[in-house]
């Protein structure tokens, strides 16, 4: 800790007035990612810095965060940019080493989680001797076992030196180096050894070979142990990431690194192109978002048109002021709740979007008198019953396994799906029902049967279409969204969580 802090202080002293310059570049980066930082907030940040010891990195970061970032959702972006622009000098400068042709061709954004699960191919040890590598791995294991933060950090640094084979000026991203380092230290191996050590400790001095799950250690303890190990490894991984980033910044400069690592805010991540990690984060965002929306809607509903004067309550209230009605009281009208029908295309690329929509709608289903859901590819099936459970995850899984959505070949056929939908359920669509159709309207050149949609629009209260494709792609290739769209009350581009929230909010007001 102390080394890094003094280094950091030195860096600041070295830059002198450069501090302001760095800060402004940092602000520019924040604005580029979409975090709004006003001028007065920048000034606040600058004046806050005169109150804290600049050598205290945590306090420094907290001051910048508190003065410039006013939304919890923007914190991740702030974090990432901070680590780049106010990076500590790396432990050792980047050393040259031989390249591995095969790995160079690897994609930068390869999904690391896959690798981490599959585990342990032995990798080339970046030129270091075998015994050195063994000793390093052993010291990392010891550090993790004792949960010793500074040793974990120095282990991570050495691991980067030995395994990542970083070279100045090479156009590869941090993910690639991270992959190499983690492969080099055999993360899975470490995890297994840590879990075994933990179990032995629990059993309490028994002979080590007997340590197996369920053997002298309860399932609960096993779970806690596993989480503990994961947490330590996570610590190690983030140290490795930090070190790699530091070296990259040292090599290329902060602006360049920021440019390559820049990610959109989560609420603006495109559903269709989200990575599996982003998907998981998005899914966990939906419920809180829905809860907030629900509270907001309930509040607005109570407030809008206060209703007629409640004579009885007003009279009663006036008794306490001698019969003078100082405060009029109103009746609260009962708002009518719409009935909602959601019809989702769940073929290939738009499936994830359909899942988000369904999850969101069911999370706020109290706002509607009834929600019915249907899914289709080239055949349509009702899945309302799947959602009669508390577990949305299970419902979505059942859609995948049980819904009967394939008629001929399992390629989207909107025309057929809509015709069948109308045949089967059309008579139940009434003037109370709002219908939402989601899909990209890529119909594989089948016939559109758009007149069915026109019929549906006539019979329902509202008919909306949500399209997860960017507007520019509509009606290109086999997309026929306009053919349907002319009959709908609105066709909305919904590519991210922000747009989905805006749409659902407007829906309840209709």
């Amino acid at each position: 800790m102390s080394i890094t802090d003094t280094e950091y202080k030195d860096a600041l002293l070295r830059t002198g007035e450069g501090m302001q310059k760095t800060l402004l570049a940092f602000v520019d980066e924040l604005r580029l990612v979409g975090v709004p930082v006003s001028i007065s907030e920048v000034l606040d940040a600058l004046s806050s810095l005169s109150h804290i010891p600049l050598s205290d990195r945590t306090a420094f970061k907290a001051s910048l965060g508190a003065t410039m970032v006013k939304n919890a959702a923007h914190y991740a972006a702030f974090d990432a940019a901070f680590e780049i622009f106010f990076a500590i000098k790396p432990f050792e400068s980047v050393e040259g080493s031989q390249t591995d042709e095969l790995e160079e061709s690897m994609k930068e954004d390869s999904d690391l989680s896959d690798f981490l699960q599959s585990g342990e191919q032995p990798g080339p040890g970046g030129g270091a001797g075998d015994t050195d590598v063994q000793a390093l791995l052993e010291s990392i294991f010891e550090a993790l076992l004792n949960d010793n933060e500074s040793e974990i950090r120095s282990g991570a640094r050495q691991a980067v030196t030995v395994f990542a084979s970083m070279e100045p000026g090479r156009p590869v991203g941090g993910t690639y180096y991270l992959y190499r380092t983690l492969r080099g230290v055999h993360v899975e191996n470490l995890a297994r050894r840590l879990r075994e050590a933990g179990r032995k400790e629990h059993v309490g001095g028994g002979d080590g070979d007997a340590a197996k799950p369920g053997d002298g250690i309860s399932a609960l303890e096993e779970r806690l142990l596993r989480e503990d190990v994961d947490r330590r490894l996570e610590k190690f991984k983030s140290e490795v990431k930090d070190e790699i980033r530091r070296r990259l910044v040292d090599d290329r400069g902060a602006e360049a690194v920021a440019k390559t690592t820049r990610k959109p805010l989560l609420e603006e991540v495109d559903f269709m192109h989200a990575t599996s990690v982003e998907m998981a984060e998005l899914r966990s965002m939906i419920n809180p978002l829905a809860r907030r929306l629900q509270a907001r809607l309930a509040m607005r509903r109570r407030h809008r048109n206060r209703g007629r004067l409640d004579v009885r309550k007003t009279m009663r209230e006036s008794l306490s002021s001698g019969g003078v009605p100082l405060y009029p009281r109103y009746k609260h009208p009962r708002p009518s709740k719409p009935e909602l029908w959601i019809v989702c295309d769940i073929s290939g690329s738009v499936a994830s979007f359909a899942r988000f929509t369904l999850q969101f709608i069911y999370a706020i289903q109290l706002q509607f008198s009834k929600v019915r859901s249907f899914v289709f590819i080239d055949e349509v099936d009702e899945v309302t019953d799947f959602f009669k459970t508390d577990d949305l995850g299970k419902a979505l899984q059942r859609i995948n396994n049980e819904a009967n959505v394939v008629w001929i070949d399992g390629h989207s056929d909107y025309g057929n799906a809509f015709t069948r939908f109308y045949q089967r359920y059309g008579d139940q669509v009434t003037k109370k029902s709002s219908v939402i159709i989601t899909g990209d309207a890529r119909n594989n050149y089948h016939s559109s049967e758009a007149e069915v949609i026109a019929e549906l629009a006539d019979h329902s209260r509202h008919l909306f279409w949500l399209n997860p494709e960017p507007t520019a792609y509509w009606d290109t290739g086999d997309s026929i969204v306009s053919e349907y769209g002319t009959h709908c009350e609105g066709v909305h581009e919904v590519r991210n969580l922000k747009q989905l929230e805006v749409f659902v909010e407007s829906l309840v007001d209709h």
Partner: protein
Amino acid sequence: MVTELNADTAGEGAIPATLPIWKSLEDVSERLADTNYVPDDQIASVIYLADRLAKPILCEGPAGVGKTELAKSVAAASGRRFIRLQCYEGLDEAKALYEWNYKKQLLRIQADQAKDHEWNEIEDSIFNEDFLLTRPLLEAIWSPEPVVLLIDEVDRVEIETEALLLEVLSDFQVSIPEFGTLRARSQPTVLLTSNNTRELSEALKRRCLYLHIKYPDIDRERAIIQARVPEADEALADQVARIAHSIRSLDLKKAPSISETIDWARTLLLLGVKKIDAVTAKSTLNVLLKYQSDIEKAERELEIE
């Protein structure tokens, strides 16, 4: 119409300067810890800065991470009076700032009618301090000693009321038409909390320091349990913290709050539990979780069915 009420304010000048509360960052941590609040570095830094920059703190985070508790602890640690304005929809000037005591005024007018008074006399007599009900906001800036003002759940008031709060907290004066202008006698330490049910106005956010409190990590939660339930030994506190952490990682309707983990630790202590096993965990899980579906899920995931 300027009455004796604002005669004792410091003239036209600024609010009397108050001494800083905290000597240093460490001082914040130590004194908060003395009140059994365990701040992390971020919380301590923001509290310290807010005092130095004389800015309000806007505090967000999931329910039950100790936002309100933080305000109370700041008050306790600084030895200042604690005033709380609980927000709700429909909160207005009359409930936040001040209100005339109409009923008492009516009585006064009726009592005066017996005698033969000029209207001016009556008016003067019913619009003075005796008939003014001060509400939290006015009370906070009108107090001769600086206070800690907590504006709780500010996201629940309408945007107009939010503007009113903002005006009072930036001008530090209140105009009462019948009466004159009341200038602040001291500058309060202000904390606002929000559950983020709606976006607060840009103006409010700009003027505040922002503090997002997350669920604590295991070490901090263990320290919190030990501070609040000193009878619990370290091993039990550690286990409680780890299980609570584990449960929070599940996808639940409502994750356990810190106060619920503290309750759980107390419960276990009362039951004389030294070490949590599947049976005790299962039978006391309802202290931690409040939905049946959540309880079932936790039992399944932790394999304590």
